[in-house]
C-alpha cells in the first residue's frame, strides 16, 4: 500500500481506531431500555405462541383457502433479506470494491440473523411443530421443502463462518483491550481469537478462507432464495405458476437487503458515533446500489405482472384484477409505487442519498418489501380454479389476528436480539480491516 505507515505511526493509528470502534461496546447509553423493550416483545410473542400451540393454527386468520399467510410471507421476507450478506461480502468483496470494508460485518450480521430466524418462522407456521424432526427422519428428496431446509442450513453455516473468521484478529484485539469485561466475555474473545499473533501465514490463511467462503456462498445464497421461490412456482396455482420466480425473488431480495443495511448503517453511525467510519460517501454508494437493485426488480415486476395482464387468461384475470383494481389494489400500488418506483426515482438524485433521506427512503422500501411478499403469497390463494363456496365468510377474506401479528413480530424481535448481541460483543465495523485499509502495518494488528 502506498500510504504505508511506519510501525510507530501504525500503533498510534490502530489505537485510535480501536478506541473509536470499541467505545460503543462499553457505553450503555439507553442499552437497558432497548433490551427491556425487546424482552417485553419476546414475552408477548411467546405467549402468543403458547396460545397457538394450545388452540391450534386456527388462532390465526388462516383457513382452508388462504392457508399460507403472514408467516410464510415473513419467511420469504427473512430469506430474502438474508441474501444481502452474499451481495456485499461476496460479490462486491470479490470484485475488490474498496468502500465496502466498514459494511461487511453489518451485512454478515444481518444475513446470519435473518437466515437463522427464517427457520424459526417456518416452525411457527407448522401445524405440528413437534414433528419437525420428521423432516430429517422421513424426508423425501423430491419435496422443495427438503431442498429449502438443506440450503438454508448450509447458508447459515457459511454465513456464520463468514462472520467469525474475519472476526479472529478483532477478537485478539478485544482480548487485549477488554480486560474489564466479565469472565465469560473474555473467554469468548479468547476462543474466537484462535491464537492470533498476526504473522503473515495467519493473514494468508484468513484471507484465503474468506475468499473460499465468499465464493461458496454465492451459489448457496442464490439457491436459498431460488428454492424458496419454487415453493410457489412448483405449484399449478395461478399467480405462482411462473417460470421467472427464481430471478424475480432473488432480485427482490437484494432490494430489501440493501435497504436493511442502509437502515442499520444509519442506526450504528448515529448511536455508535461512527461518522468517521460510516461516511456520507457510504450512504451515497449504497443509495446507488439500491437504485440499481430497484431497477432490476422493477424489470422483473414488469414481466411478472404486465405480460399476464396483457393476455388476461381467465383464472389469471381474476387474480390480476384483485391486485390492480380489487381488494388488494391499495397495498399493491402502495408497494409498487411507494416501496419501489418512487424510492428508486428519488435516489437517482444525489441529495436523497445523504444519510437521513437515504434512511427514510430505505424504511419505505423495507416496509414495501414485506408487503410485497404478502401480495405474492396471499391473493393467489383467494383465486383457486374452482369457486370457493359453502364455507364461512372468513375462509375467503384474510384478516390477520392479533396472535398472528405477534407471531410475525416475534422472529423479527429475535433478529434484533441477535444483532444487538453481536454488536454489543464485537465492533460492528471490523477493526483490522479498517486499520489495514488505512495503511497500518499488518504485524501490529493483534
Amino acid at each position, binding site marked *: 500500500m502506498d500510504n504505508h505507515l511506519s510501525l510507530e505511526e501504525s500503533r498510534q493509528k490502530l489505537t485510535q481506531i480501536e478506541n473509536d470502534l470499541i467505545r460503543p461496546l462499553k457505553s450503555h447509553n439507553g442499552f437497558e431500555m432497548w433490551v427491556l423493550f425487546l424482552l417485553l416483545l419476546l414475552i408477548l410473542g411467546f405467549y402468543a405462541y403458547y396460545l397457538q400451540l394450545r*388452540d*391450534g*393454527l*386456527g388462532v390465526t386468520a*388462516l*383457513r*382452508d*383457502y388462504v*392457508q*399460507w399467510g403472514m408467516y410464510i410471507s415473513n419467511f420469504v421476507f427473512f430469506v430474502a433479506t438474508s441474501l444481502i450478506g452474499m451481495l456485499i461480502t461476496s460479490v462486491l468483496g470479490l470484485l475488490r470494491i474498496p468502500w465496502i470494508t466498514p459494511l461487511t460485518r453489518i451485512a454478515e450480521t444481518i444475513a446470519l440473523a435473518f437466515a437463522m430466524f427464517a427457520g424459526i418462522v*417456518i416452525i411457527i*407456521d*407448522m*401445524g*405440528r411443530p413437534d*414433528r*419437525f424432526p*420428521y*423432516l430429517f427422519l*422421513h*424426508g*423425501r428428496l*423430491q*419435496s*422443495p*421443502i*427438503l431442498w429449502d*431446509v438443506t440450503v438454508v442450513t448450509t447458508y447459515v453455516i457459511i454465513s456464520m463462518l463468514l462472520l467469525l473468521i474475519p472476526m479472529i484478529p478483532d477478537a485478539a484485539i478485544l482480548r487485549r483491550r477488554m480486560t474489564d469485561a466479565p469472565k465469560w466475555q473474555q473467554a469468548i474473545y479468547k476462543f474466537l481469537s484462535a491464537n492470533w499473533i498476526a504473522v503473515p501465514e495467519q493473514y494468508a490463511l484468513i484471507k484465503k478462507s474468506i475468499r473460499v467462503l465468499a465464493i461458496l456462498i454465492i451459489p448457496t445464497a442464490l439457491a436459498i432464495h431460488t428454492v424458496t421461490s419454487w*415453493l*410457489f412456482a*412448483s*405449484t*399449478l*396455482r395461478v399467480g*405462482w405458476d411462473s417460470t421467472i420466480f427464481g430471478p424475480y425473488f432473488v432480485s427482490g431480495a437484494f432490494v430489501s437487503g440493501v435497504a436493511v443495511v442502509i437502515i442499520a448503517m444509519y442506526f450504528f453511525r448515529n448511536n455508535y458515533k461512527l461518522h468517521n467510519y460510516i461516511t456520507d460517501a457510504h450512504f451515497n454508494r449504497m443509495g446507488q446500489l439500491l437504485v440499481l437493485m430497484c431497477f432490476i426488480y422493477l424489470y422483473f415486476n414488469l414481466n411478472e405482472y404486465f405480460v399476464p395482464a396483457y393476455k388476461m387468461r*381467465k*383464472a389469471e384475470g*381474476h387474480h390480476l384484477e*384483485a391486485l390492480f383494481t380489487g381488494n388488494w389494489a391499495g397495498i399493491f400500488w402502495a408497494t409498487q409505487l411507494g416501496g419501489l418506483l418512487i424510492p428508486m426515482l428519488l435516489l437517482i438524485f444525489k441529495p436523497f442519498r445523504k444519510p437521513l433521506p437515504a434512511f427514510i427512503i430505505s424504511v419505505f422500501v423495507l416496509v414495501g418489501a414485506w408487503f410485497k411478499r404478502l401480495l405474492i403469497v396471499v391473493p393467489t*390463494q383467494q*383465486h*383457486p*380454479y*374452482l*369457486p*370457493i*363456496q*359453502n*364455507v*364461512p365468510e372468513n*375462509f375467503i377474506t384474510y384478516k390477520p389476528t392479533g396472535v398472528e401479528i405477534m407471531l410475525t413480530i416475534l422472529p423479527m424481535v429475535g433478529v434484533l436480539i441477535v444483532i444487538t448481541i453481536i454488536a454489543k460483543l464485537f465492533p460492528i465495523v471490523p477493526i483490522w480491516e479498517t486499520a489495514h485499509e488505512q495503511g497500518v502495518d499488518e504485524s501490529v494488528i493483534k
Partner: protein
Amino acid sequence: MEENNPIIESGDEGRRNFLKKLGIFAGVGVAAAAGAVYVASDYEEKKNPEGKKVRVLTADGQLVEVPESELQKIEQEELDIEDELQRRGREGIAGKSWVMVIDLAKCRNARMCIAACQAAHQLRPEQYHINTLVMKDSEHSAPYYMPKPCYHCDNPPCVKVCPVNATFKRQDGIVLIDNLRCIGCRFCVAACPYSARIFNWFEPRDSEKYKDQPYDVELNVPQKKGTISKCLFSADRLRKGELPYCVSSCPNGVYWFGDMNEDVVVNGTTKEAARFSQLIKDNGGYTYLEELGTKPRVYYLPPKNRIFPAPGEEQVSSHS
C-alpha cells in the same frame, strides 16, 4: 337421449360378480394382516347362531373357528394395531384401480353425500372432503351443480411436494394421508389445484370422544389437530367390499364407482352395473382441468338434459 345412459352389463350377473370380487379382495386384505386376531375379531367378526363359536382369520390367512369363551382380545399396544392399519393402508388393495364417475345431469344438490362423508370422517360442518359447487363456466353457459371430491390424481401434485411422505399414492390409485406423519406444512394444500384438501385448524370435532380409537389411515380418523384431511375414496369401505359413503348415500343416482381394471362401475343409488369405458364413451365423460396434467381418477358426465332444474342464477358466485 333422455339422460346419461348407463350400459347395464348382462343383467344382474355383472353386478354380482363385481361385488363378489370386492368381497374376495377385502378378505385377502384382512387375511394378510399380522395381529389379525384382534383386527379380524374387530372388523370381520362372525358369530355362529348359538353364539358359542366364532370364525376368525389367523395371521397366515386360515379361517378357523374358536369357542367364543376362549376368545379374548389381544391386549396389544394400540400402536401395533395402528402399525397394521398403517401397513395395509399404505399398501392398498392389490389388483384394483378405483374410479369414480359423477353424472352432473342428475345432481340436484341434495348434499346427502356431504352429510354421510362428514359423519364418517368426524368433520365439522365447514370441513369438506366432498363439496357440491355451483358452477357456471362462462357468461352464457348454464349453471350446474358439481360435486367435487379429491380426484385421486394419477400424477398428484400434492404427493410430489409432501416433505415427509405423509400423503402418498397407493397401488389401487387412492391418494391417502397419514395424519400420524403429517407435519402440517400445508404445502400439499398449496399444490392441489382443485382445493381438495382441508386442514384441522382447531381440535377436531369430537376429538375427546375418539381419542382412544386406533388411527385408521384408510378412514383418517380420529382426525388430528394440525394435520391435513381430504377425501379418501372411503378406502375403509372399499376394503370391506362396500361402496364409498358419498356414493351409497346419494338419492339421485349421481355416483358410479368401481374398478378400472375390471372396467365395471356400480351406481350407488340404483346398484346397477355398467362398463366404465362404455359409460364414458357414450356420454362424453371428461375429467376436470385435465390440461393441468394431474390425470384425475374422477370422471364427470356432462350436465346435459338435466333431470332437475338448474341452480338459480342468484346463487351463482363465480371466481372472485
